[in-house]
């Protein structure tokens, strides 16, 4: 490096450190109380005991992802047996069994309209399937290719737009019609592992292997906030139902709640007896419960305001890889490496 460049680097490093200190101080200035104090007068939620109501059998290999349809009845799951299955969770019937070109699938998503599903993985692509094609056959509608790393997660904004996160450290907003990238969200210093869209569809959050979560403005294409604190990869991320907080799950065995308006972590969900990574998470309808899937085959249910464990879902014979609570809050679905999905309530 030239002497001039070294001088510039040193100056930029000082500016960066200065700004980081400013942010730390600004966050500290908001700490007039804690979430624990604000929830002091509230009792811990009573023990939550959910039962397995349905077991969805049909996949022949590890399930990596699942996503509920907005109708709270249908859901889609992706397995490395090379299939995407759309299930009627009430009858347990398979509505569609879609064979994939690449079996190395890591994520799947259901469009809010119910018309489309998407998936992707080690093929670095996001494939969009039309469930409501004229002749009744489910076909690939679009293959969104541009990422230079695996597809870790995808979420539809509508039938015409989808957001993807990738092992290439970026997230992308795609125009499904033209198959082109509308916006590239760059900034993470590690593989992006998970993303979630805000209830008002204006923002999305991403969790990455750089141990941070970032809040992005979808239309501006900018990163608004960055949250640190985790000591390992963030594998799962979700919005608190009112859109004002974000929950992350990490390989460091903890989940954290970050408040968007105070711009900082408010509470950590961890227990000394839990030593394995969090793979997936979903809040309940009110946000009071956090259901988190772990590498030790269990799902722990946390009281989000008191940070106490109030329940366990034990029923899988292998890692719980994905979890989702239906839109009407009536059921929780877990997917596992044991090849089964279970519906609980």
């Amino acid at each position, binding site marked *: 490096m030239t002497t001039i460049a070294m001088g510039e*680097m040193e100056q930029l490093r000082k*500016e*960066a450190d200065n700004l980081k200190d400013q942010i730390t101080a600004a966050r500290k200035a908001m700490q007039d109380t804690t979430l624990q104090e604000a929830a002091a007068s509230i009792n811990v939620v009573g023990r939550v005991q959910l039962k397995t109501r349905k077991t969805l059998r049909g996949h022949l290999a590890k399930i990596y992802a699942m996503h509920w349809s907005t109708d709270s009845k249908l859901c889609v799951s992706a397995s490395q047996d090379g299939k995407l299955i759309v299930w009627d969770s009430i009858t347990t019937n398979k509505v569609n069994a879609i064979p994939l070109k690449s079996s190395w699938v890591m994520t799947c998503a259901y469009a809010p309209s119910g018309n489309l599903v998407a998936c992707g993985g080690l093929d670095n692509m996001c494939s969009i399937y039309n469930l409501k094609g004229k002749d009744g056959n489910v076909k690939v509608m679009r293959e969104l290719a541009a990422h230079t790393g695996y597809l870790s997660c995808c979420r539809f904004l509508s039938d015409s737009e989808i957001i993807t996160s990738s092992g290439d450290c970026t997230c992308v907003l795609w125009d499904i019609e033209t198959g082109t990238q509308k916006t590239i969200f760059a900034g993470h210093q590690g593989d992006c592992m998970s993303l979630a869209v805000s209830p008002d569809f204006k923002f999305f959050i991403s969790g990455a292997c750089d141990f941070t979560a970032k809040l992005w403005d979808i239309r501006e294409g900018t990163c*608004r906030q960055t949250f640190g604190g985790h000591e390992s990869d963030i594998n799962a991320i979700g919005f608190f139902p009112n859109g004002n907080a974000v929950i992350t799950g990490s390989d460091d065995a903890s989940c954290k709640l970050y408040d968007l308006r105070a711009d900082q972590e408010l509470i950590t969900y961890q227990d000394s007896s839990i030593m394995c990574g969090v793979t997936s998470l979903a809040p*309940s309808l*009110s*946000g009071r419960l956090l259901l988190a899937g772990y590498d030790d085959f269990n799902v722990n249910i946390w009281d989000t305001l008191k940070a106490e464990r109030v329940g366990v879902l034990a029923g899988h014979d292998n890692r719980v890889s994905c979890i989702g609570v239906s839109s009407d809050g009536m059921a929780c679905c877990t997917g596992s490496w044991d090849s089964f999905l279970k519906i609980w*309530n």
Partner: protein
Amino acid sequence: MSVKMGSSSTSVIQAQKLVDQLRVEATMERFKISLTATDLVRYCQEHKRSDPLITGIAASSNPFKDKKSCVLL
């Protein structure tokens, strides 16, 4: 020579991007936790009664619970 210049200017560009991003994040308007935490608590309390996983679901209104039919012997 040009390769070295290339890599050093890339590092400088990256460092500048980081500084620019930090500047954006530093200037956001933040709100006191007393306000934001209270809102979180209030939201939970207001929606607790309509959260099926907390209140429980009556067997008759649980679409996932198999309904057992009565058999007259």
